[in-house]
């Protein structure tokens, strides 16, 4: 037993999850400790600090290459954290696709992370890291793929600047996954109510920092999924509208839309409402959507 182990027991550190334990939520990993939430876009970086009470603190954004921005901001970011721990959200160089018949064996989700070839078989590409969201009622799954080289670059740049990476996730996929979870729960509650009418088609839309992920479903089947990164900005929502509206129009009237967005994408909801008739929009967006997701999950 090392002296550090004894110290960890006496300071109760051994009873808390480790800062880079991905199985534990960020809030549980950093109780009463300051940390930093960082979002990486194609053309810039935005960040938000978390104070010891878990409340949001200083925020900012900077355009430019990741390496340049991190090198420039490293000292300030270290000052915003207790030990330099950061949660990083990537919002480009990812692909979200709808797959079928992915393995759902026990431990398969963990295996996808560490050995995607063994879990995904021929669907796994070299140089990609994966995360998966299964439809519990059918054989379809939403699969996230991110360039491994990009992940390693992020880790290298942050470590080189004296920062520690506690999590790397895809922001829009996280919001999409959260929205899907809520949709599944709502559907389960609806089915428990023994309603005679079917729930019908549901479209899940997640918008985060210029990235969009849309999935259409009909009852228990996930039908179609589209995702794009760097698609819109607060001043230019048209590209996002162009990719969302055809799916809504094809779904027909009576379609329910589950809409989750950050503040920049909030205006999209109004555009969708004004452009489509006969649809019901359930807006589950939260203030500071991405940051809240990174903080709580």
């Amino acid at each position, binding site marked *: 037993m090392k002296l550090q182990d004894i110290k960890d*027991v*006496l*300071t*109760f550190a*051994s*009873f*808390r*999850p*480790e800062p*880079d*334990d*991905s*199985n*534990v*939520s*960020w809030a549980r990993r950093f109780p009463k400790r300051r940390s930093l939430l960082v979002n990486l876009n194609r053309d810039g970086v935005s960040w938000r600090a978390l104070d010891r009470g878990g409340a949001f603190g200083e925020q900012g954004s900077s355009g430019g290459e990741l390496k340049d921005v991190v090198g420039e901001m490293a000292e300030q970011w270290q000052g915003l954290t207790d030990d330099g721990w950061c949660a*990083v959200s*990537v919002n480009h160089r990812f692909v979200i696709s709808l797959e079928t018949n992915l393995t759902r064996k026990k431990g398969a989700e963990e295996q996808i*992370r*560490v050995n995607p070839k063994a879990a995904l078989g021929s669907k796994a590409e070299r140089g990609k*890291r994966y*995360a998966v969201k299964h439809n519990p009622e059918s054989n379809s799954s939403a699969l*996230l793929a*991110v360039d491994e080289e990009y*992940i*390693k670059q992020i*880790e290298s740049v942050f470590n080189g600047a004296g920062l520690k*990476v*506690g*999590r*790397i*996730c*895809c922001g829009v*996929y*996280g919001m999409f*996954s*959260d929205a899907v*979870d*809520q949709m*599944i*729960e709502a559907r389960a509650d609806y089915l428990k109510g023994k309603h005679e009418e079917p729930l019908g088609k549901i479209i899940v839309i997640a918008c985060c920092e210029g990235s969009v992920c849309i999935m259409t479903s009909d009852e228990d089947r996930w039908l179609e999924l589209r995702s794009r990164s760097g698609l819109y900005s607060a001043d230019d929502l048209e590209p996002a509208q162009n990719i969302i509206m055809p799916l809504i129009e094809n779904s027909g009237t009576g379609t329910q839309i589950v809409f989750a967005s950050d503040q920049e994408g909030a205006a999209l909801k109004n555009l969708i409402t004004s452009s489509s008739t006969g649809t019901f929009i359930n807006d589950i967006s939260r203030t500071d959507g991405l940051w809240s*997701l*990174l903080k709580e*999950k």
Partner: protein
Amino acid sequence: MENHLQSCHDLKTDRPDIGQPLPGILALLPIVFVFSVIAAIALNTLFFFQLRNSEQAKEEWKLKVAEESAKQKEIVAMIELIKDEERRANDVRDWVEGSRQMQPLAVSIARSMDVKSSIAELSLLRDSENPKQIKLGFKFDNGGQKQLDATLEAVNALGYRSYSANQTAGKEGSLDYQATLIWQNSNKESLNLTATDE
């Protein structure tokens, strides 16, 4: 709801030695340790002050014992002085008690003499070392043994007893008598003295 609370996906390169947190029940261990340390510090502080107080009390008691010993020595010396005084007082008392006035004895002997008898010689000697004893030397003419008995009866009436008596009879009723008189009965003496004074 359970799914909704699941942690977010993670794509970072995992550290191979990430450990699970220890079970919460084991948190009692450091709590007990901390309480033990606090209790040990508190008890040590308490014992430290008590030890210091006891040492002070010990020193005070040592001083008191020394003071009392000195007082005891003074008292013992005083008792010795008192005993010495008492002894000397006893000696004085003995001397006073022994140094009875010899005048009543001489008067008593003289009064005991019959008309026909006469004292030829009378000596009363007192030893300064032993004042209770009086050496009587008595020589008279005429009367013989009868006169001696009368005289001794008068002496006895004053509370004296005769010891180591030695008598020598002479011609025509003369007698030489020597003895040591020791005074014994103070009541008789006081009575006689009172009678004598009157």
